[in-house]
């Protein structure tokens, strides 16, 4: 291929009259895809306390605590500051207790606010 003078120029000049492709993010948002892995959501009613998710979680972000001695009731503490959003808990759970939502703006100023309790 031979060298030409300013081969890029036609495309550049065309772009001058096109709408920019930049998404003005905080003002307009693109929708997240259907299978997006956002925050972990836990359904305490379905949990059987098998603790597979605790063992499989690569980030050690899940704690399952038994609420009462007599009943099979559990609560989950999610350390969202450690969570890496891999959704392994969704795959590992035998009773489909977990799902992922589409939220991605989860940054906060205080890290402690990311500790979430599901009862």
């Amino acid at each position, binding site marked *: *291929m*031979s*060298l*030409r*003078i*300013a*081969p*890029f120029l036609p*495309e*550049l000049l065309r772009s001058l009259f096109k709408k920019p*492709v930049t998404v003005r993010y905080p003002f307009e948002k693109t929708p997240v*895809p*259907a*299978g*997006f*892995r956002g925050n972990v959501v836990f359904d305490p009613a379905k949990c059987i306390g098998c603790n597979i998710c605790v*063992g*499989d*979680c*690569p*980030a050690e972000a899940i704690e399952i605590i038994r609420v009462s001695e007599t009943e099979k009731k559990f609560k989950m503490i999610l350390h969202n500051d450690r969570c*890496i*959003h*891999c*959704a*392994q808990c969704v*795959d*590992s759970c035998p009773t489909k207790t977990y799902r992922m939502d589409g939220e991605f703006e989860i940054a906060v100023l205080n890290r402690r606010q990311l500790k979430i309790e599901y009862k």
Partner: protein
Amino acid sequence: MEFKVQLGPQHPALHEPISIRMTLDGEVIRDADLRLGYNHRGVEKLAESRSFIQNLYLTERICGICSFSHQTCYTQGVEKLMELVPARRGLYIRTLVCELERVHSHLLWLGVAGQEAGFESFFMYTWRDREVVMDILDWISGNRVHYSMNTFGGVRRDIDEMQRKKILDTLDLLKQRTDYYLNLAASEPTFVGRLAGVGKLSRQQAIDLCAVGPTLRASGVPMDVRKDDPYAVYDEIPFEVSTADSCDVLGRAVVRVKELIQSYRIIEFLLKNLPEGPFKVKAPRKVKPNEVYSRYEAPRGENVHYIKSNGSDKPERLKVRAPTLANYPATIAMLKNGFIADIPLIFAAIDPCICCAERLVQLDDGRGRGRVLRFSELRAMANERAKKIDYTKREIAWPF
């Protein structure tokens, strides 16, 4: 007169920390040395205390750009240890994501090459079109960077008919744009002038220094793990290994663009021949004592994982060798007798991924100190240290 200079670990041309120490003679580099170790995370040691499933996500996080490469390399190694035959549809989808990742990585590289050469418009355009691939990966896997698609025995998500059609449609746009960039990069005089003849690495040098990937292939050695040691379903797919004979940065760019075109062919083949059936099979949790040497052709070259199991659910040893580490000796050879102006290009031409290459031991990560340093304290520490250094004005050669 010669003088010694240190580039990095913080430098605008280096997107990640690495230090190049050079002996300069005016603008010419006489000698170069690399200092590594600014980005240690202790992945290999950590992997020994994690279960196989947890390591799936640990290996993925060795690198951001080639996350799927490391994960796939690890996954297929563990599958061999488990003596597990993955589902065929799963393997097709896995290969599809591999190739999509290659496309996104090579488009990214084209942009980086443009940026390092000061060709900002080229950078903006290639990255704009890279978003198309990122969107495809987004549809398939849910997220843009860490796809988390692999699991032992197949993949975690199926792709449906609509996604298949959508990918095939967008592929045409990508093909067209890649052709345009190939023409553009090969005909813009200032860009070609910067790339041609820079960073020479002869065929023999490339082989001796164990270079991998496009760096090796641009020196005329047709080594590609996909052909030499086929994994996943590459033995069923028709494609060609791209090489170039010019042994310089331009050759490496050409190899990458040719690979892009091959990748489009592969993606098209995969989508048209996608077999029916399950996309994953059930995997055992424990692994028999054995060892495996898993190879994978990442966008940057041959990626290697050596995994040894001891019968428990944790690996005995996981050794990771990322392509960038293998290319460092070749980089030093390329830097010698080059110009300062060529450093960013030569360095970018191996497509360095420093966080990939360094993954070993962590000493203190700030968190381990038990206290958090304030900015003022850091500054006081730096001043304290600076006072101890004897600054005598360097003797500098007048270059004329």
